[in-house]
Structures are given as C-alpha cells and as structure tokens.
C-alpha cells in the first residue's frame, strides 16, 4: 500500500456556518476501487468537488502521485488525469450524445470529425453493454440513458483517477453489472477509482477499501474484505438499520385509480404510453418495474396532469381525470407526485427549503390567509417540522435548495408529497440518492400511509426496493404493462423476461 495514487490530507471546507468537510484525510492506493460511504449530506460530493477543482478547499493538501497539487479548475483536474461522473448530470441539452462526449476534449483538430468519434463511441458503448444512440439529442434521453452518457463521457477520456459520484442511481441491475465489469477491467489496467454510492452491496461487490464519512468527518476506514453490509450501515447511520416490512394493518380498499387503454405522446413525439391499463386500490402499493425509458415517466406525468393523454381513460374513484388541472389534482383530488427529475421538476433550486416545502400547496391554507396572503408562520412551522421528521441536513430553512446535498434534495420532495396527506401518491425513483437510513425511513412511512388507506404507485428501476414494499408488481415495456404479479411469485428471471418485452404467457 505504499503506492498511494492520491492522498487527501486534512481537507476542510465550510459553507458559511456549515462545515461540509473537516480535516478529511484519505489515502487511495493506485489500482484500487476505493468506496466512500456516508449518509446524505455527509460531505462526500463536496470532497470530490474539491478533488475535481470545482471547489477550493479552505485548508489541507491534495497529494497526487506523491506531489502536492493545486487543482483550481476542472480543466486542471482533467490535465492531471482525473475524471468525474457527477451526481447531477452535466449534459448540454441540445447537443448530441457524441458532441456531449467529445466536448472540451483536448488534442482535437479544429474541424469536428463526428464520424470517427461516433464509431469509436459505438464500439465503446457496445463493449460496456450500454445502448446509447450517438446521434440523439441529450435533452431527449431518459434519465437512465443520461447516466450512461455521463459514464461514457468519463471513460472516453482515459482518466487515470476516476471519481464516480453515485453513478448507478438509475441504472438497471444488468447495466450495473456490466458497468462493474468495466470498472474491474479498468482496475486491472491500474486505474484508480473513487466510488460513492449508497448501495452497500455495490460496495461489498466492487471495492477494496471503504471510507465512511459522517457530518463532514471521516469516521472509519476499513478493508472491504473485513466488513459486511450490516456493519457498514451501522457505521454510516450510527445505529442499527432494520427494514421493517411492517405488518399489514389496513385492508386493501376499493379501486382508487384506474387506467384503461391509455395512450400518450412522449418528449420525442413517440408513443410513450401505448394502450396501457392499470389499477391501484386504496391501501395498496403497486410497484412498476421496467428499464428506464419504457414510459414510466410519462405514466406518472399523465396521472399527475403534467402530460395529456391522447386516448383511453384515466379515472380516480371512477371519475375521469382529463378535465382536472394540475392544481385541482393536487388540491382537490389529493394526488401526490414525486417526479424522477428532482432538479428540473421537483424543486426550485434558487428558493429556500421552506418555500420548496410548500411548493405544491402555495395557494391554499394553511399556507395562505385572507385569500392569497402568505402565512409565513405556517410556512416556517411546516418546514421545521418536516426538516426534523425527515432529518434533512440544511443550515437553515431559508437555505437555497441548490446548496443541499443530492439526498437531502430528494428528501424535501418526499417529505412534501407524503406529508400533504395524498389519497394517491405517484412516486418515481423515490430512493434515488438516499442513504440506507433514509430509505428505511421513507419505506416505513409509505407503508404506514398505505395502512391508513393511501394508494401508491411506486415506479423504480431498483427491483429490490420494489419487491421490498409493494403489494403488487407490474412490469412496463414500451408503454404497456407486460405482466402483473405478486412479489412472492416474482423471480428475477421472470421479471427480467417481462422487462425485455415478453408477455406474461411467454414469461
């Protein structure tokens, strides 16, 4: 272990009163996969951003290949052979996948030679088992595809030290598997990988060493071989984590949501929903599995009212939803919705925590009085309560959401939507970026609410999460439901076949 590729020494970083990193010291050996674990807001992204030149440390040293370096910009980081996949994607909407990937690469001729790049890219993505269309506009890609592009962008540059900040949050299990194969190959080629994730099995699976962070400091550093997921969870959260798939107290009630032969057009003008039928009952959690981009996002949007449907019927309690506006669905029909793109849709990044907590109920009591006058007292009380309950790490309830960690951003949306007391809750990728403690809490809360009669449509690419809490599971493929089954009868092979488009009978 003498060959330290990277040494972070006593790095400190404060944002005003928040000490995001204090005296962080980590040794990363060359040719290893080094995982960094920590609860939401522990300071992982901050640390990586300092390493990548996006942030400047207040104090401390970065020693790369035995020499102290000052990384004052990402450009410098790239020059030093550091590459990074960011927690929040860094894609330029109107550019194609190829253009996004070659953007800023040094040593290119003045004339763009997209053809050559495209070919190499196709080769690379095939080798990695990533299906990406090089000519497609980045803004039109589903989230999962965007993540693949981000990874390719990083790998394409042949970096020596690769930082991965939650790279697998929206990859399917198969994709994750092939991606890990790639990482192992890179490791074999003596590249060093810094890997942040909340998925403990990934840590166990891939890493050589683990650093655990809490509240800005390193609490433990251990060999992966000597530990286990339970211990890691405890080190991270500071207590035992129990997935308490609580007993079912409430009963499944009447039919709450019913979709019949629904078709809807997607972002690319494609037929995103293609004759989809689906029911959700009161007191029931229906999981929707499927490879990202098969119409799940559109399904959620149709129910929430963000996207019109072109035919079929969508009914709540037997009443057609089409005439209801988004705000009526939120206020009167009490349909909650956690969108998958939290930064673009779910949050107003420039506004504070409190404002985001009332986003969907801003024009109703308890947040308004005398008509449309805002009641700041109520807004603050609500925000304080939710911050407390969901353990959101924010320096104050006025702190702009932009400056919260990814997991804490997600928690705000979840808190807001769940605590509004919806009858029907549509959640898309709800646990993306949450630490294990938070996942436990969210799932338990959902179950609690289900027991009180709430219907939940739970869309996720993480099969385990779905299986853990849903009462029923459907699989989507190309805008249709290919199968509906109970969790206990769902084997991963069977679901895999359904996700690949085979119908129930064939599966």
């Amino acid at each position, binding site marked *: 272990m003498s060959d330290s590729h990277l040494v972070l020494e006593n790095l400190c970083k404060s944002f005003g009163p928040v000490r995001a990193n204090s005296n962080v010291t980590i040794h990363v050996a060359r040719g290893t996969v080094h995982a960094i674990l920590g609860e939401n807001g522990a300071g992982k992204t901050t640390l990586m951003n300092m390493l990548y030149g996006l942030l400047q440390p*207040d104090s401390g040293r970065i020693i790369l290949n035995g020499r102290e370096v000052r990384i004052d910009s990402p450009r410098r980081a790239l020059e030093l052979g550091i590459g990074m996949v960011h927690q929040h994607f860094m894609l330029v909407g109107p550019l194609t996948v190829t253009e996004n990937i070659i953007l800023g690469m040094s040593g290119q001729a003045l004339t763009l030679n997209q053809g050559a790049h495209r070919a190499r890219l196709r080769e690379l993505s095939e080798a990695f088992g990533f299906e990406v269309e090089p000519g497609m506009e980045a803004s039109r890609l589903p989230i999962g595809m965007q993540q693949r592009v981000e990874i390719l962008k990083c790998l394409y540059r042949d970096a020596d030290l690769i930082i991965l900040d939650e790279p697998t949050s929206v990859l399917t299990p198969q994709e994750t598997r092939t991606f890990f194969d790639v990482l192992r190959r890179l490791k074999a080629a003596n590249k060093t990988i810094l890997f942040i994730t909340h998925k403990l099995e990934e840590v166990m699976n891939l890493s050589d060493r683990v650093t655990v962070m809490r509240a800005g400091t390193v609490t433990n550093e251990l060999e992966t071989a000597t530990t286990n997921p339970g211990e890691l969870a405890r080190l991270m959260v500071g207590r035992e984590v129990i997935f308490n798939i609580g007993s079912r107290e409430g009963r499944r009630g009447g039919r709450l949501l019913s979709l019949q032969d629904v078709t809807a057009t997607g972002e690319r003008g494609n037929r995103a929903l293609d004759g989809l039928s689906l029911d959700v009952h009161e007191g029931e959690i229906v999981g929707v599995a499927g490879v990202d981009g098969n119409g799940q996002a559109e399904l959620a949007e149709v129910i929430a009212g*963000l996207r019109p449907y072109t035919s079929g019927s969508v009914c709540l309690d037997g009443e057609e939803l089409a005439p209801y*506006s988004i705000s009526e669905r939120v206020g009167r029909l009490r349909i909650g919705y956690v969108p998958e793109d939290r930064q673009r849709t779910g*949050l*107003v*990044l420039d*506004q504070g925590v409190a404002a985001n907590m009332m986003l969907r109920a801003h024009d109703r009591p308890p947040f*308004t009085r005398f008509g*449309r006058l805002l009641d700041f007292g109520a807004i603050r009380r609500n925000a304080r309560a939710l911050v407390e309950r969901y353990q959101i790490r924010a320096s104050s309830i006025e702190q702009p959401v932009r400056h919260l960690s990814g997991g804490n951003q997600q928690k705000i949306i979840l808190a807001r939507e769940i605590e509004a007391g919806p009858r029907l809750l549509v959640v898309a990728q709800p646990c993306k970026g949450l630490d294990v403690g938070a996942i436990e809490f969210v799932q338990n809360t959902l179950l609690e609410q289900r027991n009180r009669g709430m219907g939940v449509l739970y869309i996720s690419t993480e099969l385990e999460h779905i299986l853990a809490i849903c009462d029923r599971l459907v699989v989507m493929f190309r805008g249709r439901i290919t199968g509906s089954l109970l969790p206990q009868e769902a084997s991963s092979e069977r679901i895999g076949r359904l996700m690949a488009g085979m119908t129930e009978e064939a599966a």
Partner: protein
Amino acid sequence: MIETLLRWTYRLKSVWAVMLALLLGALLIVLAGYDPIAAYRELFSGAFLDYWGVSATIAKVSPLLLAGLAVALPLRVGLFNIGAEGQIYMGGLFASLVALNLPEMPALPGILLCAGAGMVGGCLWALIPALLKAYRDLNEVIVTLLLNYVAINLVSYAVSGPMLAEGAPYPYSEEIRPSLFLPIIMPRTDAHLGAAIAVLLAMLIFVMLRYTATGYAMRTIGSNPHAARYAGMSVRRHIIGAMVIGGALAGLAGAFEILGLKHRLFHLFSAGYGYDGIVVAFLAAGNPLASVLAATFLAGLESGANTMQRAVGVPVTVISAVKGLIVIFVAASLAFSFQRSAWAAVLRRRRETEAALGEVRRGRRHA
C-alpha cells in the same frame, strides 16, 4: 474592528464607484477645457441639493420608476420587457385621446379616467408580446423591441395627422384642459404628483411580490417554469398577467408625462425612459423598493447632468460619456460582495484558528 471597517467599505461600494467614475469623468471634463469642480458642484446641486434640482429630479422619478417597475415585474416571471418605451408611448396616446375628448367633469374622475386610459394603452401594447410568448413561445425581447418603433410611429402619425394642433409648427396635439393637469407638489416647478403615485405603486407591488401567493408563483415561474407547472401554477396566465401589468405601469408613465408635464401629446415625448427603466430594474435587481432608489439615482443623474451643461457649459458629449461611466461603475460595484471577498475568507480562517487555539488553551488549563 477591521471587519466592521471592511464591511462598511463594501457596503458603500456604490459610493466609491460613483467617485471613481467621476474621477475619470473629471479627466474628460478637463480635456474639454472646463473646471471639473464647478461642474460637479452643479451636478450635485442640480440633482439633489437645491430646490430646483430636487424638483427636476422628482419630475423624472415618475417615468423612470414606473418604467423600472414595468421591467421589474415581467422580470419576475423571467421575461425581458424591452418594450416599456413603446408602452409609454401608447399610454400617452390613449391618455391624451381621452383627455381631449372627455366631456366637462370634475378634476378627480377626469384624471382617473385619463390615467386609466393610459394604463389600458400600455396594457394592450404589452398584450401582443405576452400572447405571442404564451401561445407561440415567441421571444418577447424581439417583439417588444420591434413594437417600440411601431408605437413611436403611431404617436408620430397621430400628432402630425388627426391630432395635430391648429397651426402647430411641430407635431403636437392641442393642450388638454387644465382641470386634468396632475397637481404640482413643489410650487413653480414641474414636480408633479406622478412621482408620489409611482412610489406608492412600488410599495404595493413590493407587498404583492413578497407577501402573496401570486408573488410567490411569479418568482417560481421565473426561476423554474417546469417546477412551477408541476406546482399547479398556470405559467401562461402569470406570464400574460405580469407582462400586461408591466405594460399598464409603463402606460401610466406615459399618461403622467402628458397629464403632469407636457399637457399635450408630442412627437417623441419620452426621452428613452423605457430603456432607462431597464437600467433601473436591473440596478435594483428587480426589487420594487430598491427600484425607488435606483430611479431616484438615475433621475438625479439626468437632471444634474443637464444642470452641469447649463451652468458650466460642459459639452453634452462629455456628459453622456460620464453618465455611461457612472452606470458602468455602479453596476460593476454591485458585483463585489464582502462575503465573496478574500478579506472575508482571511478573517474567517483567523477566527477559526483562534477558536481552535482557544480550545487548546482551555484544554490545557483543565488538564
């Protein structure tokens, strides 16, 4: 101590900026062969320090502030209203049309009707870009900009054709009747009630933006329209609403120029106030209360500059360059913040070390 001093240095940044700009301007004034000290004495007294200067400044606050608000309000929902100038013209046109055709009536309802007509004129003119933006997603910058030229020509046509005063040597309309003049708030000057009304409106809008759900919705739409839609806000309605109310404010500015100052509709009656309004809105960062300050500052600068020309004879070319320098420097100064400065970082680090040292010392004592 040092920190307080530094903080105040930063807080007064706009003052330093003005002084720096004036210093550079002094160079130009000397180059032009005039005495900068005399010139600047007149600049300040012509802006804020004597009765006439104050009155001239107040007379300009009315159009500048209203135009500033007309830009600031749509800015909240993320729209650039470059068209305040055209809206001012339409406001003036509508107000004088009504004023010249109104049956005899008491002053107050008459003035209200004319002002209302001005607002309607501005509204209608803003409605065009608003609808095109909301329904066709046409860039409002270009549409409002182009409509300015159309409005100026419309007024030009009206006053040189159908509304031209008998025997007038220049395109202007008949005088409106004296009962419709806005009250003068400083005797023997042009300072009319418009400025006071504008300040009141600024406060009203401030309250609306800060304390109501509508204001919150506008801010949300301005910073993330996707999230706003998700929150059930009607993006379209707010876009149209903000633009149209902005237009009404600019229209009111035009009406006040007629009712309070010119008392006739003139060809080219607005001296680019709509464009100055953009500067007002941005210097104030879209805040209506700060707009009052920004408008007063610009109004003072304008009237002081005019005095400088009259009293000392400083050429208008130099004055225009100095005005540009002042706006440049003041705008630039807004970019400096204490929190962001190297000073703040140094001081913070020192505090932290001291705290750490203190801990160490305390620990030693206990031990």
